[in-house]
């Protein structure tokens, strides 16, 4: 099973554009990433630029509305993620505990949904969507 470990650094919601973590923190984090990689559990990882460089698109009233960051209403934002493949939720938690996190950081561990998790009607709906994507050639190329 796959889990996403979402890194939520407190304060990142108001970070100025272009803010980068300091070199020392990065070094510790690289070691941690390497340990995930060496254990064969790491599938993907990325860090995200602060929300002040992003935008939010909301759909209130059924119409998309774009707001540029930073977002005054956001109390916490994602700063990056790891996607790992492990045997259990407990193992995912155990890996998250090993992260050299700072006191302002929180990691949220969330299981990635698989098609087999869905009830039949959702599976059918997804199947139709995939077929449509395949026909119109809109799928991403590998």
């Amino acid at each position, binding site marked *: 099973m796959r889990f996403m470990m979402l890194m939520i650094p407190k304060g990142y919601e108001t970070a100025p554009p272009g803010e980068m973590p300091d070199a020392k923190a990065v070094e510790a984090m690289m070691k941690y990433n390497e340990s995930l990689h*060496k*254990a064969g559990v790491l*599938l993907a990882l990325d860090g995200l630029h602060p929300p002040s460089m992003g935008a939010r698109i909301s759909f209130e009233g059924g119409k998309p509305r774009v707001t540029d960051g930073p977002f005054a209403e956001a109390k916490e934002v994602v700063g990056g993620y790891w996607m790992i493949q*492990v*045997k259990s939720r407990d193992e995912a938690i155990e890996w998250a505990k090993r992260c050299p996190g700072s006191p302002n950081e929180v990691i949220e561990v969330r299981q990635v949904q698989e098609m087999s998790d869905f009830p039949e009607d959702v599976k059918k709906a997804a199947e139709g969507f*995939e077929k449509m*994507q395949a026909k119109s050639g809109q*799928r991403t190329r*590998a």
Partner: protein
Amino acid sequence: MAVTATDTHRTIEAVWRIESARLIASLARVVRDVGRAEELAQDALVAALEQWPVSGIPDNPAAWLMATAKHRAIDQLRRQVLHTRKEEDLTREIEQQLEAAAPAPVEEADREIDDDLLRLVFTACHPVIATEARVALTLRLLGGLTTAEIARAFLVAEPTIAQRIVRAKRALADARVPFEVPRGAELGARLSSVLEVIYLVFNEGYAATAGDDWMRPGLCEDALRLGRMLAELAPAEPEVHGLVALMEIQASRSAARVGASGEPILLLEQNRARWDHLLIRRGLAALARAEALGGSGGPYALQAAIAACHARARTAEETGWPRIVAYYDALAAIARSPVVELNRAVAVSMASGPAAGLALADALASEPALASYHHLPAVRGDLLFKLGRMGEARSAFEQAAALTRNARERHLLLERAARCRAA
């Protein structure tokens, strides 16, 4: 390990999954016996199961397990009755190593553990052990699986697996297999044995040879984890990356190759939108790594290159069959096997028409190695069907159905036989 519902027990299980291989590997270097190292690690696990629910989980569970196992090892050594001077020396040396107080600098210690892990991989897959037992021992020592989990995964009784592991450990001890990474000319053959074990685990998960389910994804994930781990331990070996590439790309099709009611869906009929593009990307990257190391001609790299041709084709019709035939030709030249020949026949049928493929498949009919291999009549059935020879196609499908031990596959083959009658 008896699993109770308590949180601590579940945490210990997770810690074990993460730490056991490194723990056993470090212990094996010191006690010079993989079997004993594993028992010491198990003792530490039992101690954790007894103590952690009361004392709480230590800040550094790995260090706790290691310290506990080392104390146990020292106790055992001291209690042993010694007969010869030589053994005394060895004992003292081991004692000193176990008690060595000053831990190595972190980076050096990391490198040391990596070396130990690689030694453990080669030892668990040593040719003095029977193949089945190599598989069980590898999953147990390096995959962190319990005997019960291995038994469940292979649909074998637990005592059978336990027996295999006991015998494997005894074989290693009897042959006095040194705890080391083979060098020079020996390395190639020994590495092949390691890769074979990992791919066997993967295949048992990917195309279960027996049972009711067509796939057991847990085993595929175990094999991938071992493969990815090995790729970091032996980064200069192109075939390791070739195997990882092959497994990543094959695993990318997992969701697409099983239908709504659990039936198998063949590659060319799969909904390619359901292929996992993260795994495809990882597979292509691993293949590129193998090729960059000059390994594009290795058997796993060639199989991965074939899988990559399929992964890159947007639709089944876009598949580059002539290129796939060329890869099969190269594969047949280095690893001549009837199974490769059969796959080549399928590729040829796609590149040059079913008649050309059938001629190759028919030539394999007398292969003793394929006598009970259900894919041969299944392929013949498919090609005969395409040629409109329905009667022959039907009996080929029926023959294949009678040969497979997988219930899902049998059902699919009988369905195809029935379709021949209807046509």
